[in-house]
């Protein structure tokens, strides 16, 4: 008999769990249904299909992990990973340092709202220009024999012989990276600038009364508030770097050789040039898993919470 109250409570919980949904709840689920259906149709189904393709041949025969081993055995994959790694190591630190510097500079020195708004608009511009257009303009800047950059440098007397921006492996990588830096540094600036706006004025004033110089203010106050935004920027930029395609395709086509053939361009070629759907699917799954793990690692290293 001693168990009776406990059993009754459990039954009550189960009953509560099985209770009929209210009209409002049913309506809520009904309204959610199209959105959930869309997510299911455009995310879940393709993902399942990609996994199925990655373990089968074109005619549907299941071959286990053979496509994965084929993908991993291709030396071009490692060249593409290397190129993507180099590209990332060039663009992310530069965008970070430049974006942070601009954000702090504007935050500390520009007080007029009109000027801040103008800078805001200027920073938005590169983000809304189509990547293809940026690629074409960049090609006009870097192209051999008629590139604007060489002409300017020659007129300024900085160089006396044309620089082969897109033909030399190192310079070609720097050229494609520079386009990324131009387009995405404003994004870093905007995010960090908005973060700086949230720093409490009292904290800064208290630090100033205590005699903290600008570096100490930045290091012990601003940076503390910006930290969660760093992970946001790293997340977004890593995802973008993985998708970089248009301007590289237009500027160098992955060349010279395969030195600027980034992972996205390589996967595009496996799928749409080699028409090796199975290998492309295996690559897609591997990239997805690798980056999920990488993101999990980053999230652990850079805590989201401020405290």
């Amino acid at each position, binding site marked *: 008999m001693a168990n009776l109250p406990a059993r009754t409570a459990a039954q009550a919980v189960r009953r509560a769990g099985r209770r009929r949904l209210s*009209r409002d709840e049913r*309506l809520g689920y*009904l*309204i959610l*249904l*199209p959105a959930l259906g869309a997510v299911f149709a455009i995310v879940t189904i393709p993902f399942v299909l990609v996994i199925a393709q990655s373990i089968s041949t074109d005619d549907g025969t299941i071959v286990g992990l053979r496509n994965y081993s084929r993908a991993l055995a291709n030396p071009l994959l490692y060249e593409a990973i290397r190129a993507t790694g180099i590209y990332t190591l060039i663009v992310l630190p530069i965008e970070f340092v430049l974006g942070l510097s601009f954000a702090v500079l504007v935050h500390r020195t520009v007080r007029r709202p009109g000027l801040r708004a103008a800078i805001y608009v200027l920073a938005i511009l590169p983000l809304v220009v189509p990547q293809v257009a940026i690629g074409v303009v960049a090609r006009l800047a870097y*192209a*051999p*024999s*008629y590139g604007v950059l060489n002409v300017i440098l020659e007129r300024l007397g900085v160089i006396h012989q*044309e620089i*082969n*921006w*897109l*033909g*030399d*492996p190192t310079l*070609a990588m720097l050229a494609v990276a520079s386009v990324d830096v131009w387009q995405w540094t404003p994004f870093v600036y905007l995010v960090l600038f908005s973060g700086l706006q949230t720093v409490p004025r009292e904290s800064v004033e208290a630090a100033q009364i205590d005699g903290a110089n600008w570096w100490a203010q930045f290091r012990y106050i601003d940076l503390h508030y910006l930290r969660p935004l760093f992970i946001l920027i790293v997340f977004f930029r890593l995802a973008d770097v993985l998708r970089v395609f248009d301007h590289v395709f237009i500027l*160098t*086509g*992955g*060349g*010279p*050789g*395969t*030195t600027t053939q980034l992972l996205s361009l390589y996967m595009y*070629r496996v799928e*749409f*040039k*080699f*028409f*090796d759907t199975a290998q492309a699917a295996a690559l897609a799954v591997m990239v997805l898993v690798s980056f999920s793990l990488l993101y999990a690692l980053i999230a652990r290293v850079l805590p989201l919470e401020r405290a």
Partner: protein
Amino acid sequence: MHPITRREFVKRTALAGALLTPIPAILEACSTGTPSSTKTTKLTIAAVQGAEDGPLKKVAPMYQSQTGITMEVVEFPYDQLFEKLVTTFQANGSSYDLCMMDDPWMPKFGTMGALQPLDSNFGFTRDSDIPSIVYDVGTWPPPRGPVPPSEQGKSPHLYGITIVGNVEMFMYRKDLATTPPASWNDVLANAQKFNKSNFYGYVIRGKATNPASSDSLPILWSFGGDIFDANWKVMLDSTESIDAITFLTQTLKKYAEPGAENTDAADRDRLIAIGQAFQSTTWPAEVTGVVEAQGVSQVIGKMAYIPIPKGPGGKGLGMMGNWLLGIPKGSKNGSAAADFIKWLIKTDNMKTYVQNGGIPTRTSLLNDPALGQNNPYFPALAQSLAAQPNWRPRTDQWNAVETVYGTAVNQAVAGLKTPKDALTAAATQIRAAMKQAGYPS
């Protein structure tokens, strides 16, 4: 009328939306997929954006006014058109009634069984005024040369009719050199002779993949090299192949423009058009679009156009780059689409097409002096077609092969690898890809 609450309105709207959404898909699924018996009122053409489809867009309204059939030309950039067609064919889609196809795509589409046969279905026959090679390139499996293993034993059918008679040719400054280069040695000699500061003896179109591949294949063939032999054995690492690519990427490169490894057709045309280069290979569309274009070029009337010069073996082999019109299997207006193709290749209509910038395939039009006045490359094109130019290997793996080969040539042009190392590595890669695809490499 009974008023309803806002909640009730939202609920009914959501339900109605959920019920109505799949109706178009259900109706589409219930359709038979067979040719419609109703009269065709509209034909949709998937076309490549650029000089190649410009004349087609100009003459399509004429057909529209004659027949009442609305002609819609949907344009895509080169790479996107191919991808779009492949995915449409894979789904047996009926979005397009006609499609423009670059001739190296024919093996892919032929192997996929993506097109309707023009001869057996619509009664197309060969016209003696059009060179046989033009019909051959639209036939699958190929009537000559190696046939892919999966296609052997199949009876050949005509699947595409050429509407842009592209063949790769050679151009040089006739105001500077009085005699045309007969061989690649002459080309080299002229490059040496005319090369000077800010005037390049030769222009290499060496950008990675398709550009480098297209630019080098005529030289490769003229030197006796090739990508495959008659039995699909890879011979890219043969002595002749290595000699050809060494000639282009080392010997001739000494007199070429800086940044050749990043030069594409537009860059080449610009150098020629502003009078900063002596010679190069070229395609007809480059001639009409830039080199001989009023208001664009500074060398109008100064260029000569000839078939590809001869190699050490005494043969010069141009490369076909025909653009064909085909009818996708999924089209429900096959008969009307075939009528349009027949209309377009009639002599009078093709003449109008040429007057609007089109590149003809009819020998009579290529040799028409009146048309030749505005198109100085017509005689060279007629000669190139008559000499049976080479086509790119007729394999559905061509895109992969071209990517590997074009990257290797680009590496050699950039000096990242020696021609021998680049071609040897490419040959190994192509052998593996072909073996994977079931070829006897």
